[in-house]
């Protein structure tokens, strides 16, 4: 049962039944809605809108995405900056952004605003049974025109190789620890992938996996040619992919430059002739580089920087949306008082979320409870804002209730609760301010609660106690994974890869197990709804402060950015740059 075709064909039956699945439900919606996507979304024209048009889109989250007017100008060099060169070049074991996010491409991609799955390298799929998936690979995709590929076709054999490698099935052969395959959970339960013909891949799962399709749109699992293990993963200049840009220059800590791939499979893309990255480690210098026109885009700008830039470059465009990164305080359930749900719940009711998030980010952030509002099944900010604990209008009453709850747990006014919060004390991050505001709030609500703060100088020193769970509470930020069940599993499942607080509840574990194999959309959504309710009422394993705002500025002559802006922007990887273009104004 084919459910989607790149290029406009639509499914012939309800998309999700049989394979279906929660976020995959989005797949259906996406396919039905966009017919397999137009090339470049709406990027081909730059009419209408005008600068500064605010358009609530997608999930209803606030999104500022001005449409740049002007005539599209083909070619040109687009320059971005980053603080350091990529250091790891094997996309399936890399821990961070890497070259393949530019020269590679993914099986599927999310709509940046709705997270709906769009066909990409994989154009359609069939589900023979819950453990057998058959994918169609877009024919005619070419690997970059460089040795040893010289523009050969990227086929089902390459896709099969990638899926098995991502899943860690080659760990023994490559003498690499299985755990090094960081994104194996994105294709969890994969037992085998084989090419049936040059455009067909058959995937066999050991058991059903409702997250499989969402996993394939994770930006961190790009496809590479199957020869790469033989070529080696050390020299970026020897790497060729199927992405819109091909490596042209690579000098560590200086530049990472790419040229347009003339054989990219999306018609008329990319628009730029070259896509260059300058390495600028200092933030003030990066802002200066943007203002002086040396770079075309700058990310993560704060209000002060926006004001500075706007003053110097009035025509610069500001794009803003609620992001997939969420800030939190995570208690360790190994610390005595935090074992008691009443204590965890009292703190949840006592936190003034708006004061903390407004304090650092100002406007633009979104309320969040258990799940990112970007998931279709995730509660939206307006709903979360109306709940006890989060609702600013009922804060006084919630805090009174929190005090009673803590007294009932044997800690009147917080007496007897004495814990330390660890965090990264690095410049420009929210953690120090978040932590100080939390400490002050708890001091006013529970006067006898003792909280000490333990800052760490950098990420390297901080990550050790966090990873080992050697803390009583930790302040940090998480980037939502592309699927709500993967998120639930990694964050809260007993032994979950990011369950640093060692939370454990057999009912939650059972819920995760059930959701993983539940292939019916409605049933899966019901599980996730139940999870979100129990998260704030029965478990409280985490204090999610909110989803941070994302703010990106582009030069006034950059068009097409509006088609890639949105909560799932980061999951479009750098390949999204192929949809941007310069305009004559």
């Amino acid at each position, binding site marked *: 049962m084919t459910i989607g075709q790149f290029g406009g064909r639509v499914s012939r039956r309800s998309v999700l039944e049989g394979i279906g699945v929660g976020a995959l439900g989005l797949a259906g919606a996406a396919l039905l809605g966009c017919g397999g996507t137009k090339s470049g979304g709406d990027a081909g024209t730059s009419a209408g809108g005008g600068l500064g048009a605010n358009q609530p889109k997608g999930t209803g989250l606030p999104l500022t995405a001005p449409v740049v007017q002007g005539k599209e100008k083909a070619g040109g060099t687009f320059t971005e*900056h980053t603080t350091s060169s990529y250091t790891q070049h094997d996309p399936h074991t890399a821990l961070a952004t890497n070259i393949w996010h530019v020269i590679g491409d993914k099986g599927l991609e999310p709509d940046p605003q709705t997270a709906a799955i769009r066909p990409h390298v994989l154009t359609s799929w069939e589900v023979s049974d819950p453990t057998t998936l058959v994918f169609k690979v877009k024919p005619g995709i070419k690997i970059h025109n460089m040795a040893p590929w010289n523009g050969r076709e990227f086929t089902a054999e390459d896709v099969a190789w990638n899926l098995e490698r991502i899943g860690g099935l080659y760990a023994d052969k490559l003498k690499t620890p299985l*755990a090094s395959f960081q994104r194996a959970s994105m294709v969890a339960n994969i037992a085998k992938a084989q090419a049936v013909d040059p455009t067909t891949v058959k995937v066999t799962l050991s058991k059903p996996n409702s997250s499989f399709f969402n996993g394939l749109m994770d930006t*961190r699992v790009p496809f590479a040619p199957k020869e790469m293990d033989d070529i080696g993963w050390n020299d970026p200049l020897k790497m060729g992919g199927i992405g819109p840009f091909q490596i042209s220059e690579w000098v560590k800590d200086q530049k990472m430059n790419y040229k347009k791939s003339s054989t990219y499979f999306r018609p008329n893309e990319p628009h730029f002739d070259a896509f260059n990255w*300058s390495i600028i*480690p200092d933030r003030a*210098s990066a802002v200066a580089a943007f203002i002086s026109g*040396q770079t075309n885009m700058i990310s993560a700008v704060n209000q002060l920087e926006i004001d500075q830039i706007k003053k110097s470059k009035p025509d610069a465009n500001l794009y803003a949306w609620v992001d997939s990164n969420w800030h939190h305080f995570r208690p360790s359930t190994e610390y005595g008082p935090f074992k008691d749900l009443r204590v965890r719940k009292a703190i949840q009711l006592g936190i003034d979320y708006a004061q903390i998030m407004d304090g650092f980010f100002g406007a633009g952030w979104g309320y969040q409870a258990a799940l990112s509002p970007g998931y279709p099944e995730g509660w939206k900010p307006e709903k979360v804002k109306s709940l006890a604990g989060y609702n600013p209008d009922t804060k006084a009453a919630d805090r009174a209730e929190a005090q009673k709850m803590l007294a009932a747990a044997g800690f009147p006014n917080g007496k007897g609760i004495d814990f330390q919060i660890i965090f990264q004390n690095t410049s420009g991050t929210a953690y120090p301010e978040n932590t100080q505001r939390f400490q002050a709030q708890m001091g006013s609500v529970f006067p006898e609660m003792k909280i000490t703060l333990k800052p760490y100088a950098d990420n390297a*020193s901080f990550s050790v106690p966090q990873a080992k769970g050697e803390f009583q509470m930790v302040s940090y930020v998480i980037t939502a994974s592309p699927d709500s069940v993967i998120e639930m599993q990694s964050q809260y499942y007993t032994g979950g890869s990011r369950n640093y607080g060692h939370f454990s509840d057999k009912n939650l574990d059972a819920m995760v197990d059930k959701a993983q194999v539940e292939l019916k959309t409605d049933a899966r959504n019901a599980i996730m709804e139940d999870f979100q309710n129990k998260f704030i009422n029965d478990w409280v394993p985490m204090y999610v402060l909110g989803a941070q705002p994302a703010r990106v500025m582009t030069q006034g002559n950059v068009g097409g950015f509006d088609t890639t802006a949105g909560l799932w922007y980061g999951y479009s990887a750098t390949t999204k740059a192929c949809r941007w273009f310069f305009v004559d104004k």
Partner: protein
Amino acid sequence: MAKYVLRRLIGMIPTWLIIMFMVVFMVRLIPGSIVDLLLQDQGGGGSYQAGIDRAQVEHRLGLDQPVYVQYVKYVAGVAQGNLGASLWDQQSVVSLIAQRVPVTAQVALVAIVTSVFVSIPIGVISAVRRDSPVDYLLRSISILGISVPGFAIGTAIVIFPTLWWGVTVSFKYVSFADDPIGHLKLIIPPAMVLGVQLSASVARLTRTMMLEVLQEDYIRTARAKGLQEPKIVVKHALKNALIPVVTVLGIQITNLLGGSVITETIFALPGLGRLMVSSIGSRDYPVVQGIVVMTAIFVMCMNLAVDVSYGYLDPRARPA
């Protein structure tokens, strides 16, 4: 002289071994480990189950051996010219350092040349015009140069032209061979930042030493002989006043390496300072060790060069 130099070189070996011992131990005392970074997730968190694989990763990186074993192996490697390889991308540390040294050296060289040509005349003029308005002005400038930190000057150079005129220094590195003018445009601003601070302290020292020398009997004698004042100042006074200045310059050159950490970050120059910062951040022990060891060797050699130069500047200081 050759024996003296040889003796000093042999004397450096124990110092060098102690430095290597300290650096090998100390980089491992920095909180946080490369293993945890390697096991870390993209979002920034470590793996909860990392303990399972830590041992394998440590073994692969050779970090599972006792530190003294790592030290002995390191010393043996260094003795053969092998500083190891980056734990992240397996690039040879020697080649990494070799790529970065020219940038740092060029910035330092321009800073020193600038400093010498600016600070020594300032110091001399200030001394000759002692307590005049010119002296006060030059001394005030010197104090300002010493007082304002390099990062503030650097940031000001980058930010203010941007805000006022919408232009700033280029952050796109080009080599001298590719574009000599463009390269100099990149090198000069950070060199000026380093040069300002170096000039300020050297100018003040030059002034002090010149004042002292100008009081000496042989200067009075020279004047009594009817020599022209410029000749007295330049030929007789300055040459003797420069002896401690050379010492300070020698020490300051090594300080420039420390200053390069900040200037190279602000001006996005791919030099040794940037390599050091990024390697500490990524806990790339061999690279950090390599830079420290090479810097230590450079500092020891600079000290030797300064000592040897005494002999030429002042025959009384020549070794017997």
